[in-house]
């Protein structure tokens, strides 16, 4: 039985870091360490971004703290020819794909839209603001990849709230009808700005998969190995030409919706605290240490590396120049249309 047929939430590492499933996910020590490095860097950079925003160096910033496993585990399951269609909170996934952090953050600095990184270079589409629209793009890309006869697949990230949009349905249905190699990856982080699950949907989002005859699987989104294996299975299914998969990763948005948000208006601190105890980075580190995939020295060196890297990112992003005003009208068309 494939992990995609699981009827329960897929979980390999329990909240306390102990294994509760087959944690031999086919990653060697290097892979396991790489995963950790990505999570640690992402966590650290996210916090730096919050600081940068407070210092006036970034415009509004949407933190992803708590969602590192969901993003890193899924992005790590992809290959270089695959293509990711992110929403607006997937900096961790972007880093895994090799997007340059400074280039990505230019979006949040307000230097340019969508991230001026080259989407082709890393197979990572521009940051997409109108929620759920990117799921359709992913399906279109997947249809194109299939027509090209490649084994590549597309993965779209979207949130629990985004899944209420009509575009979610149109994308899912088209993916199913076209048997497109597409992965619909929902990060269910418990909130859509201030709107809780019971005001957003009535059944698990993964349950919608039945309506498209595609596998729908719920995974512990704070368990990076579980996210990795589930996504990997969906990727393999896509590569085999069997079509799309819907994944619902159960995670939590520890921070506010964005730096402009005041989450105390709508949610209780106890809920946040409870989820802090399920922290994805801590959990994975505990498991890694307990199983001797890493030792304390590795963790420390990882921290040091990360600090140095974040310092470079900070220096980089705070010194990005504003674009020159003539860029304003340069890009709308391949050959600009003269002003009337």
């Amino acid at each position, binding site marked *: 039985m494939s992990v995609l047929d699981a009827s329960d939430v897929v979980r390999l590492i329990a909240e306390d870091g102990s294994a509760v499933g087959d944690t031999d996910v086919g990653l060697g020590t290097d892979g396991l360490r790489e995963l950790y490095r990505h999570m640690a860097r992402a966590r650290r950079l996210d916090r730096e971004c919050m600081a940068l925003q407070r210092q006036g160096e970034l415009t509004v910033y949407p933190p992803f703290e708590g969602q590192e496993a969901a993003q890193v585990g899924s992005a790590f399951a992809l290959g270089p020819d695959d293509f990711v269609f992110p929403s607006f909170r997937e900096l961790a996934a972007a880093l895994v794909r090799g997007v340059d952090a400074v280039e990505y953050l230019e979006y949040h600095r307000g230097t340019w839209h969508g991230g001026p990184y080259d989407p082709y270079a890393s197979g990572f589409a521009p940051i997409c603001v*109108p929620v759920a629209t990117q799921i359709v793009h992913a399906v279109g890309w997947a249809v194109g990849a299939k027509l090209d006869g490649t084994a590549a697949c597309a993965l779209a990230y979207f949130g629990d709230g985004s899944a209420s949009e009509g575009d979610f349905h149109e994308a899912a249905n088209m993916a199913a009808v076209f048997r497109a190699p597409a992965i619909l990856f929902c990060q269910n982080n418990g909130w859509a700005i201030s709107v809780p699950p019971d005001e957003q949907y009535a059944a698990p989002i993964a349950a919608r998969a039945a309506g498209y005859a595609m596998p729908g699987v719920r995974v512990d989104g704070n368990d990076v190995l579980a996210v990795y294996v589930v996504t990997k299975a969906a990727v393999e299914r896509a590569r085999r030409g069997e079509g799309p998969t819907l994944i619902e990763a159960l995670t939590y948005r520890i921070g506010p919706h964005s730096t402009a948000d005041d989450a105390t208006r709508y949610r209780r601190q106890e809920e946040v605290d409870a989820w802090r105890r399920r922290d994805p980075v801590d959990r994975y580190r505990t498991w890694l240490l307990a199983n001797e995939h890493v030792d304390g020295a590795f963790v420390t060196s990882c921290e040091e590396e990360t600090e140095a890297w974040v310092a470079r990112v900070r220096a980089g992003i705070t010194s990005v120049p504003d674009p020159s005003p003539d860029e304003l009208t340069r890009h709308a068309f391949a050959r600009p249309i003269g002003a009337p």
Partner: protein
Amino acid sequence: MSELTMSAALNAALRDALRDDPRTLVFGEDVGDLGGVFRVTDGLQREFGRERVFNTPIAEAGIAGICVGLAIAGWRPIAEMQFDGFSYPALDQVIGHIAKYRTRTRGLVSMPVVIRIPSFGGIRGKEHHGESPETYYVHTAGLKVVVPSSPLDAYTLLTLAIRDPDPVIYLEPKARYWSKEQGEPTADGPPIGVARTLREGDACTLVSYGAMVHRCLAAADALTSEGTACTVIDLRSLVPLDTATIGASVRSSGRAVVVHEAPRTLGMGAEIAARIMEVAFDHLEAPVARVTAPDVPYPPASLEQAYLPSVEDICDAVRRTVSY
């Protein structure tokens, strides 16, 4: 006399409508506990309950679509789109149904629906947070479209919009949410369809709406010191458009400059210029000038002020027009 922000004025208009008319409903994304991302619905759910004021799933077409059914069931929906750039999924329901329903039913079923949309730029927002969507609505026959420029008028216009038997698209200039004004909000202002002349001057007529009204006033100030006295018209209502007030002013001044944030081509400036030509041709001493954004998508924060009409752009246009 109290001083209030536009956000507070809109909040007061909603509160008063919810209190005075038990058929009014307020809904949209995050309008409940959060009070909307701009706090326009702050406290309303607590005061009027979860039935009259409620969050919706993130589904703009759905939000506009349920307005139709609610209106048929005799309710007066006041819906919020979270931002201009996220109002587009609702266009199909707005163009296809809300605007057409009364005509479709030969007048039997009307659509007393208000759709509020925080709009326009100037807040260093991300992509899709600085759109000027008015053309889409103004061109759609069957809709009224209003844009306040000040807190007190925001109250007046929203109250009138809610009482209107027909659908009203209510575009709120985000850049003015925290602007303040002294006075008591009242519904007894000029009706929808009537412009306000904020300043009189015989050299040139400045026509604008929303946040740009304030840049026009600043330009008029600057130009006064050069001896150029401008009339400043705040349209308030884009549909119906107060062609009479604009026409009378231009027939007197002989010159007009229209200012808006939307891209130039088929922005409101086009319609206003065309109408001015229709009603004041023989009085025109110079072509009607349009000071607008260029025909490109709204830029990132770094280029926002280069994109939006500046006070200096307006002054230049007036100078060119006056010396034509």
